[in-house]
């Protein structure tokens, strides 16, 4: 018996904006289906086809107005849990992403033999870009 994480969701302020952003990071749309106000949108990276990254906008019918507003505020304040994107070359990834307008909050720096940088998506979700020790 085995198990794995198949889908992890992020809250975003605008699904089209988020889709365009994660495409810049190399993700491709996996599923994009709508039902009224609801849109199930997940993306997938060619290097990791087993995982889908869900991009969800808080709001009806899943959330009431007040809850949606609270979730939007939490994301915009950068208070969601840390996300880590593993790469084999942090500086090269930084150059590539910086060139396409990704908002970096920390340039690549080397500590304890690992190079890392930080960026945010347009909604405020914070990502760490980490290069494994080589």
């Amino acid at each position: 018996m085995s198990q794995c994480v198949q889908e992890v969701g992020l809250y975003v302020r605008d699904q089209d904006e988020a889709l365009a952003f994660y495409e810049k990071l190399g993700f491709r749309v996996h599923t994009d289906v709508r039902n009224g106000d609801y849109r199930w949108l997940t993306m997938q990276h060619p290097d990791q086809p087993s995982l889908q990254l869900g991009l969800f906008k808080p709001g009806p019918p899943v959330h009431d107005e007040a809850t949606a507003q609270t979730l939007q505020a939490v994301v915009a304040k950068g208070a969601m849990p840390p996300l880590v994107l593993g790469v084999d070359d942090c500086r090269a990834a930084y150059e590539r992403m910086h060139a396409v307008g990704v908002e970096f909050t920390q340039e690549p720096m080397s500590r304890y033999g690992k190079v890392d940088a930080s960026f945010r998506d347009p909604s405020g979700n914070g990502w760490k870009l980490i290069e494994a020790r080589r």
Partner: protein
Amino acid sequence: MTVDTATQDPELLRRLLRAKDRMDAASHEDWPVRRLARVSRVSEAHFARAFKQAFGVPPHRYLLTRRIERAQALLRETDRAITEIAFETGWKSLGTFGRTFRDVTGESPGEIRLRAQAAGHELGRVPACFVSAAQRPDLTIAVSEKRRRETTDINGSLQKEIP
């Protein structure tokens, strides 16, 4: 005062977060309200109140905790002189650094260094950036207020000891 973040516009919060990120990235630099307000694209008059409402601490106090956090990390992880660390983390004088450091953490820079060296590294498996966040001082009141309360405590206990 009731702090209701949910009433703040997410677009504004996102821009305030940018000011916070900029302080995180360069806490050794000077961050007058004018500069922060420009990053967040809000008026100077509005900035400090909006920031405090969003993040629970005034911007200058947030900056101070980041500087102390960084100084703590350098004290723990390097052998560099305390004076050098003070200037690198944005302090103009060693005296102010030492006093503020003690007020915030309850220990002097030298004491923290000795204790850290004795304890070794326990958080080795957590990415370094998150370790620094985990060790951020939790400064819920102004340093001046903390100082004032401690002075009162000292006086209070002294009075008890005097018959």
